[in-house]
């Protein structure tokens, strides 16, 4: 990066900004969804674990969006980016904005995301961009625990009662078409992969599938075929759900512009 030509640096900065938004928006939006459960989870331990996961994700959001703002260089803070963009400028995966569904749906979404998140962060720990490597280093410890937990629950519920099995299978079928997007390279991904900043999404696919397959097998769940896959989140084309998330999340910043909290 340091030796890059001026031209390259400009290209990289835009690509880097998009990439960092993607990382931060994923954690922000999924953290939001998880925190919707607060006080409503099926067991006290789950309330605690969900709040803890959400907390980790919001903490990571601060780092990713903070760095995004720095890279952009227009003086926008992490809060500015979180609270003052409309849906079209969000870069999160569609998976993260899907409604919670029942608790099984929430856990299945979490497991499929955690598996990707874990692998992505593992790759980012050797990013040539030291600030990214540092965030990934910190986050991957947290995410390793998220994955351990969601994977374990998916297995236990898949291989639990007939009802828990059926619910987990249904959750899996519902959410599966939103997993393909994790491995689609946007233009900025290729630029960053070439520069050694971030792994190419495509390259995470095999390992993710292996991890998913192994877990689902242990859970006695049937891994769906890869058919139609939704995408668009990385280009800011979201589902109809994101607008509602943002209306709620951003209310105070929008209604009281310029106020400090």
């Amino acid at each position, binding site marked *: 990066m340091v030796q890059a030509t001026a031209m390259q640096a400009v290209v990289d900065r835009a690509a880097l900004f998009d990439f960092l938004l993607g990382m931060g928006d994923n954690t922000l939006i999924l953290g939001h969804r998880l*925190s919707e459960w607060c*006080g409503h989870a*099926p067991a006290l331990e789950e309330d605690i674990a969900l709040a803890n996961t959400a907390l980790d994700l919001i903490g990571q959001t601060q780092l990713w969006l903070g760095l995004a703002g720095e890279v952009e260089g227009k003086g926008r803070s*992490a809060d500015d980016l979180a609270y003052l963009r409309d849906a079209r400028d969000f870069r999160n995966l569609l998976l993260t904005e899907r409604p919670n569904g029942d608790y099984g749906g929430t856990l299945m979404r979490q497991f499929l995301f955690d598996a990707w998140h874990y692998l992505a962060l593992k790759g980012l720990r050797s990013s040539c961009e030291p600030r990214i490597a540092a965030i990934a280093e910190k986050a991957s410890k947290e995410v390793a625990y998220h994955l351990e937990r969601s994977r374990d629950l998916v297995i236990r519920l898949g*291989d*639990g009662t007939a009802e828990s099995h059926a*619910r987990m299978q249904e959750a899996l079928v519902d959410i599966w078409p939103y997993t393909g997007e994790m491995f689609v390279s946007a233009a900025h991904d290729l630029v960053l992969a070439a520069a050694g900043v971030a792994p190419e999404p495509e390259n995470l696919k095999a390992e993710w599938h292996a991890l998913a397959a192994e877990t689902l097998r242990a859970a006695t769940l049937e891994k769906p075929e890869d058919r139609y896959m939704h995408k668009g989140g990385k280009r800011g084309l979201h589902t109809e759900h994101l607008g509602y998330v943002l209306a709620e999340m951003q209310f105070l910043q929008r209604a009281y512009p310029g106020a400090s909290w």
Partner: protein
Amino acid sequence: DPQERAFQERIDAGQKIEPKEWMPEGYRKTLIRQISQHAHSEIVGQLPEGNWITRAPTLERKAILLAKVQDEAGHGLYLYCAAETLGVSRDALYEQLHTGKAKYSSIFNYPTLSWADIGAIGWLVDGAAIMNQVPLQRCSYGPYSRAMIRICKEESFHQRQGYDILIKMMKGTPDQRAMVQDALNRWWWPSLMMFGPSDDASVHSAQSMAWKIKQNSNDELRQKFVNQTVPQAEYLGLTVPDPDLKWNEEKGGYDFGEPDWNEFFEVIAGNGPCNAERLGARRKAWEDGAWFRDGLTAHAEKAALRAQPVAAE
């Protein structure tokens, strides 16, 4: 009864009672009632604050609030565990909550209507809770005493964070300051009621004091809370909504008005703004989660079965 006398002597000598030791039935029952009520309060208390997590105004405030709500659920867990040492299961206690047999702190039946309420809850509600709980660190029952030590440490952290929200807002726009004053107006009296009615009206107090389950009178603690809180309100630039409030040089504390005990008993009886919703939310969480808990149980049974040595080839 020599056994009871010996028990009381141990308590008077400041010894801790531990789970497997003999204790009078009344002592056990009183503790179960008090600890479970406290535990229920922690988990119902997630709801009014949870109401603002998705709308927290900054990422940092959101993270702090998440951490706080997580702590509260954790407190619930310690307390249910403490109650379990007295021979009652968590599920049995939930059952009492869900059927309305057990109570939780009535303050959580008030709604959180603005972000300032999150500050006010930290400052006033956690403040009052600490005032109640600090003496309980010296409670005669070991597990409860130890749980309170952990809890108090975190609660005072929460109280500072709540106050900090309000400081920031009072330095802000007129709209923000109005929100804070409005929050104080709504939470002040319910906070004073958290100490319970005057001890004259309380049947359990004397015995609880003798058993060192309770260490101070309700009125004592309320006075202490007012004395501590009024200067904090003044520092914020707020007006305490009590026309009878004034400094009494002689007693070295504030005189203050009488809370509306009628409202207090009404809310306890179920007639508060959010009783139905709070209890409804907890019941629904429990019922909707049955399949989840059953699934985990079934899996554990299967796993145990698989782990057994095969009896015959």
